[in-house]
């Protein structure tokens, strides 16, 4: 080994006493993911497409026969579709948290995980956006939601929380897609410079926009990136607040509460981070990236799960306290029914998965045990789905007037198939993403390595 090579290696950082990481090895390790998919990938992808087509069939049925096939009946007219919408918007929240908020706080652990989180955000919003459209029953009229000049002089009602939602979700989709695609530019250039396949080269040339890494490009890239982070941070907090106001602005008992905005934001981050952990654990194992996405990184994410779980738990208790201590007997009755009535099973799943099980994250061995953490995060996502179900269905099934109280809501097969289809839709994008685009930020992970210096810094 020449003295120069020895010096280069001595400048390379090591992580967890794993293999030595150099700038070159990072390129090789991370771009290895972009290769011809194996049988396992194809098997998962085809299974995914089969589930997606079942969801598509259900939607076809719903379009042909009308929204009635979804089985929504009075008083529960918002059921699983709205729950799915809130669930997927929630999943989409982690990406911007990890990429923008942690960027502003200079938390370096984000570098190893943020690209996966951002991709999850974009695909999560794409999935969430389907549900208001499916729920309208006539998705081809979705453009009515947007303000556009028309002959009849009609304008949407800007005082309606549903219209705020249109603005919040479309802004979120636009900004998170831009953030994601801008972050990919330098990495697409690295992929472009390595691939021998002409089609992939064309794709990366388009994604990299001719990036060369010139000082002028880096200057403006980071100049803009800081502002993307700065505007995405208030955006992420506002989007789920607006989603929560879809409920909280009405007077329905169980919904009409000022705690909803922070409670929903915390819940969104809670489920989003849990989903990121669920995606990262299999990816780092399948692509042998344990030395890049280390157990420390995952442990830090699991601490975020613990933090947000306590906020969510506090909100649950606070809602009950307000109902008990407040003057409104209808609200009090609603909460009592929620915890003990027909849907008490859903409430118990929600509380166990979101508050009790995550308490085990106080223990370090649990946070560092990957299979256990994977199962725990899955249970968090199940719990968070049930949280939305409990909020929406129990509140609607038990409104002011006792004559309308009814528990005739059952999830229809159409709703079930569309829910399964939504997961397939999300994973379809994700499976293509991990094979086509750099799933980890090569340039940013390189920044965590010590810069190669010939002389020792004085």
């Amino acid at each position: 080994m020449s003295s120069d090579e020895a010096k280069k290696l001595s400048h390379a950082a090591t992580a967890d006493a794993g293999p030595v990481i150099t700038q070159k090895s990072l390129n090789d390790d991370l771009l290895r993911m972009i290769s011809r998919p194996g049988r396992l990938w194809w098997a998962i992808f085809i299974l995914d497409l089969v589930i997606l087509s079942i969801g598509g069939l259900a939607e076809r049925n719903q379009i042909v026969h009308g929204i009635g096939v979804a089985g929504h009946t009075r008083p529960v007219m918002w059921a699983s579709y709205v729950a799915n919408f809130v669930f997927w918007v929630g999943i989409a929240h982690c990406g911007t948290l990890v990429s923008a908020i942690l960027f502003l706080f200079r938390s370096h652990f984000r570098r190893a995980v943020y690209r996966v989180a951002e991709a999850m955000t974009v695909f999560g919003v794409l999935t969430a956006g389907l549900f208001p459209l499916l729920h309208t029953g006539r998705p081809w009229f979705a453009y009515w939601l947007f303000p556009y000049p028309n002959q009849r002089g009609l304008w949407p009602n800007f005082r309606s929380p549903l219209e705020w939602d249109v603005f919040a979700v479309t802004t979120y989709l636009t900004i998170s897609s831009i953030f994601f695609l801008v972050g990919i530019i330098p990495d697409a250039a690295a992929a472009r410079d390595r691939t021998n396949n002409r089609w992939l080269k064309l794709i990366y040339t388009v994604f990299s926009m001719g990036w060369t890494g010139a000082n002028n490009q880096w200057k403006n890239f980071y100049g803009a990136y800081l502002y993307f982070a700065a505007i995405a941070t208030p955006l992420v907090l506002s989007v789920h607040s607006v989603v929560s106001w879809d409920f909280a602005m009405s007077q329905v008992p169980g919904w009409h509460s000022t705690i909803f905005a922070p409670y929903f934001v915390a819940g969104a981050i809670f489920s989003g981070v849990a989903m990121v952990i669920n995606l990262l654990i299999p990816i780092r194992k399948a692509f042998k990236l344990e030395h890049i996405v280390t157990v420390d990184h995952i442990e830090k994410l699991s601490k975020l799960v613990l933090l947000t779980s306590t906020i969510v738990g506090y909100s649950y208790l606070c809602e009950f306290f307000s109902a008990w201590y407040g003057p409104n007997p209808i609200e009090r009755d609603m909460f009592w029914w929620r915890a003990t009535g027909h849907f008490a099973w859903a409430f118990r799943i929600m509380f166990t998965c979101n508050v009790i099980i995550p308490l085990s994250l106080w223990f370090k061995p649990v946070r560092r045990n990957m299979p256990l953490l994977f199962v725990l995060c899955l249970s968090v996502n199940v719990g968070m789905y049930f949280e939305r179900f409990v909020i929406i269905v129990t509140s609607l099934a038990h409104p002011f007037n006792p004559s309308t109280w009814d528990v005739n809501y059952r999830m229809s097969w159409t709703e079930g198939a569309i829910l399964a289809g939504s997961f397939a839709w999300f994973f379809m994008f994700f499976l293509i993403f991990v094979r086509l685009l750099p799933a980890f930020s090569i340039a940013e992970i390189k920044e965590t390595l010590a810069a190669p210096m010939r002389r020792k810094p004085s």
Partner: protein
Amino acid sequence: MIGRLVDKLLQSPPPNYHGVMGVYYYVDDVTEAVKTLREHGHNGLSVFSPVPHHDIERALDQKSSLVRWVTFIGGVLGITGGFSLCIYAGLSYPMVTGGKELISIPPFVIIGYESMILLAGLSNLIGMLALARLPQVKSRAPYDPRFTEDKIGIWVPCSDGEARKVEQLMRGHGAEEVKIHG
């Protein structure tokens, strides 16, 4: 047929460059080389690197990006546009509820706020692309794929007469490779 067309598209002939490209590995070598080159009057140089380095930025005496002003203008347009849209829509299609004001500012704050973020984000993108000269079809300097791996390049545009001197300066500061173009 289409494949050949793609190949042709990807391998367009490079323009004629006049200058010297030095390839480096160590950041401190680059910083010293940039300082020396600038002292010799080569102010139009570009540095290509896989990651940005503050030392190099300081050696280049680089000012901070102007993109923030573009973002700010976009944000201002967004917030005024959002409020204007709500007020115009409220007046041109009046929906009176409970005899309340048509122009009710609190709900419009949300539309104004989201529009501000949307336009600030879009103008931030446009500002970044315009200032960084992206998308770039032809590089302004001879590009080397190693610049996205672990090498740093210094490109000094200069006349053929100066090229030898620049090459010597680069080699004196630890360049691994120096190539004269022109």
